């Protein structure tokens, strides 16, 4: 397993230094990479200050870094940037691959940030002279914490506010914070955690539930009681814990796509639509997936069947959940044997017939499936007939194996890189070397499984 990266985007008036406490706490298990956004920290620039330019800049930096397995964290203003970067990764247009989850810290939403005219005017006023002075910085920090920071953190926060470029400060309050980007973001089905300070203002719990939660369909909201707006400085322990939980229970689940495969998906050899498809498909399954076409018991049975039809080693893909979701969406393969009822109904009846399958011994499970294949298994009355079970099981095997193979980690495992046979150009790159035992320089190396049994069967 490679070390995941967490790319961190700071708040207005701050810098990458605000993530140092987090880095100290996560450093053993994550590579914490924080950037200075334009006009802040050491990025002492007066251009590139718009939200779009910030987004482009972050995308460039992630690309240069090269990670293909990462979380994206954004604090306040950085949260809006993080959401837009995530949207562009998931729609394929960023030319990146490997986003596994998003961490929002008192984040500004993709829609206009709630802010009173009064405080906007006050903060714009601080920058009116061309630089933000110590008094303004003092007020800003005090207004944004739930309780005073420790001396070192406080000093850092004050210094960062004062070294912010006035142009960057103004650009955010006048434009960036007001932009409504919600349509282009839509909803993001990526694992996420939304942290809110219990004593924060408009971007506190209410604001987060109202503005960010609807964007992140599968996010958990964590409220840090008594905390203000400067969560990475105020509560690094809790933020670190939330990141670990997100990784362990959601984002880090499922099979890992090898780095060289991820880079090829990110590259100009893969077209945008394909990159979008693979980026979404590689996202971890929901651990508490609630079936839509099947009952929970039927889903459990299907999981047990899936484990025999496509035995997976290592972190498995929840093939049963994915098939359930396809059934729910009415996905059809274009035909059905006349002896079977419509797909969802056939699945429901067959899995009802197989209730308790998961409790059988491994041997008995395989015997049952073998009998289903040859038509000698007698299902309980009121479900399907033996012949129908045979037909259903053929469809079921196709659905499960296609779902397994469609995952980019499986493509890597079996040595398929045809998804990268051409980018968004008319003269698609295709292949030059076609003969046996030849491989072009860009092609990933084989990533065979270490599962001895299947390797034996392969030969």
């Amino acid at each position: 397993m490679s070390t995941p990266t967490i790319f961190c985007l700071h708040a207005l008036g701050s810098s990458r230094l605000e993530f140092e406490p987090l880095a100290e706490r996560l450093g053993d298990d994550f590579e914490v990479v924080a950037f200075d956004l334009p006009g802040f920290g050491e990025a002492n620039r007066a251009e590139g200050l718009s939200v779009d330019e910030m987004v482009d800049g972050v995308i460039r930096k992630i690309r240069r870094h090269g990670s293909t397995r990462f979380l994206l964290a954004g604090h306040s203003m950085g949260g809006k940037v993080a959401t837009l970067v995530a949207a562009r990764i998931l729609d394929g247009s960023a030319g990146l691959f490997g986003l596994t989850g998003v961490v929002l810290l008192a984040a500004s939403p993709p829609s206009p940030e709630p802010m009173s005219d009064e405080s906007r005017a006050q903060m714009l006023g601080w920058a009116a002279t061309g630089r933000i002075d110590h008094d303004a910085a003092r007020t800003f920090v005090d207004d944004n914490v739930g309780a005073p920071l420790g001396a070192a953190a406080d000093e850092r926060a004050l210094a960062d506010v004062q070294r912010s470029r006035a142009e960057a400060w103004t650009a955010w309050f006048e434009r960036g914070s007001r932009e409504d980007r919600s349509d282009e973001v839509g909803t993001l089905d990526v694992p996420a955690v939304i942290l809110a300070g219990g004593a924060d203002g408009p971007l506190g719990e209410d604001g987060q539930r109202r503005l960010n939660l609807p964007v992140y369909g599968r996010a958990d909201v964590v409220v840090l009681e008594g905390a203000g707006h400067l969560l990475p400085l105020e509560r690094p322990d809790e933020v670190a814990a939330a990141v670990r939980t997100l990784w362990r229970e959601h984002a880090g689940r499922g099979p890992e796509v090898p780095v060289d495969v991820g880079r090829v998906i990110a590259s100009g050899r893969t077209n945008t639509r394909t990159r979008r498809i693979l980026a979404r498909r590689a996202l971890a399954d929901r651990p508490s997936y609630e079936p839509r076409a099947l009952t929970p018991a039927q889903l459990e049975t299907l999981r047990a069947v899936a484990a025999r039809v496509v035995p997976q080693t290592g972190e498995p893909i929840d093939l049963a959940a994915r098939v359930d979701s396809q059934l729910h969406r009415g996905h059809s393969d274009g035909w059905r044997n006349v002896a079977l009822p419509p797909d969802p109904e056939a699945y429901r009846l067959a899995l009802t017939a197989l209730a308790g399958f998961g409790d059988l011994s491994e041997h008995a499970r395989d015997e049952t499936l073998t009998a289903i294949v040859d038509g000698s298994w007698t299902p309980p009355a009121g479900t399907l007939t033996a012949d129908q079970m045979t037909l259903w099981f053929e469809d079921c095997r196709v659905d499960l194996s296609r779902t397994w193979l469609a995952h980019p980690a499986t493509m890597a495992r079996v040595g398929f890189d045809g998804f990268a046979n051409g980018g968004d150009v008319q003269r698609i790159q295709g292949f030059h070397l076609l003969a046996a035992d030849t491989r072009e320089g860009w092609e990933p190396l084989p990533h065979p499984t270490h599962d001895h049994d299947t390797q034996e069967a392969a030969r």
Partner: protein
Amino acid sequence: MRLDGMRTYSDDEIVDAVVIGTGAGGAPVLATLAERGLRVVALEAGPNFDPHEFTPDENQAVDINWMEERLTDGANPTAFGANNSGRGVGGSTLHWGAFTPRPDPRDLKLHSDSGKGVDWPIEHAELIPYIERVEHFVGIAGPESYPWDPSRKYLMPPPARNASSDMMMRGCEALGIRATDAPAALTTVDRHQEHAGLRPACSSCGSCHQGCRSGAKVSMDTTYLPLAVAHGAEIRPDSMVTGIELDGQGRVSAVVYLRDGVEHRQRCAALFLCAGGVETPRLLLHTGLANSSGQVGRNYMAHGATQVWGTFETEMRSHRGYPSSIITEDTLRPDDADFAGGYLLQSLGVVPLTLATTMVRGGGLWGRELVGAMDGYRYLAGVGMNGECLPSDDNVLTLSDEKDAYGIPKARVAFSSGENEEAMDRHAIRTMTAIVEAAGATSTRVLARTAHTIGTARMGDSADSAVVDADGRSFDVPNLWIADNSVFPSAVVANPALAIMALGLRSAEKFLAA
């Protein structure tokens, strides 16, 4: 393809002809009629695609396939969906394999020669000039000299060979079977296609079945349809035909179709039905038209398409390159045949989901064996057959009781291979296994499969036994013509699309002359 700026017609205008379907049959018809100055409208159920938006991802590429449910029946139920028909401007040529052998003269006289099957009502010599015109217009790549027909010339050099091709050449050579580069409907040099623009040379991407993103592959939307639009044809995508209306004389007067959920009625002076081997008979059965012979839906045929895969010690990775670049026709009439007709063989490239589907359906695999077989994917290369299928009374398309989203009964298709198909299949498996083994395979696997949807509205000389005459004109409804895979009286060994296009040209010209 670009449809902006095309000429349009109103539903109330009595256009000279409506063409239903824009695939291999409909597109040449539309172009031929438009070129002669006729006012023509094509109604196409599927969308108009931008080829740059195609994806090699097998799961999502199905949006170019006909995925509306069909019901299958019989001992060898046909797999539909991505396996055999397309939906969209371009029809099945959006995702076809572009393998373009010509029909063999003996196949059109199968009954005269063997007493089995039926003869075509058209002479081979009459068909060939149409085939040559198609080949010339769309651009076919092929070998310098074709062993089974030395008179033949191809416009462009053949597609690049991949590991499967080298394997099949090696195996055939060792066995004394002649094999060569296959005729393929794709560019191997940059080609300026009249009215369609540049079609760059094939880049050997291997995704023909998921849609060609560069325009190298011949599909109707890069060849005949731009020609048609340039001459004033209108193509109406997302227009699903649900009914056909007759006037008092029993002639088609209008076509009923649904677009964006709204019912329209295009008036017309003639109708070309080119909806393919399943949708054409379904529409005829649904409307009750053109069936005094009782032959609509009968004699459904599918080519035997069994594959033999070998595992090699070298990495073959046969998703690279044009998938089927080698052919042998030595098996068209094997000396030791215990069946009528014959088959051809092609080298096979494959992508993983398609392969796994065939492993499950055609090989019965699951569990460790399936996972292991897929773990060996990169060592696999194969050979596949395309085999004659005899028309049979048992293989019929009927309407089921279930309705589709448009309220039309779903098609129910029964197919069982007969003795002839089974004997041929056994012969082909022996030959293919021998080739793959001679090429060095350490193990082999046979995967059963059928391909193509043929027959169901056969042409013939008599109104008693055929739906249309040799020109494609209905015996019952004088201004109704059919030009697609459904008119084939017998399957013919060659893959069908080239002959469908040729019949499209021919029917259109017969119509113009009538």
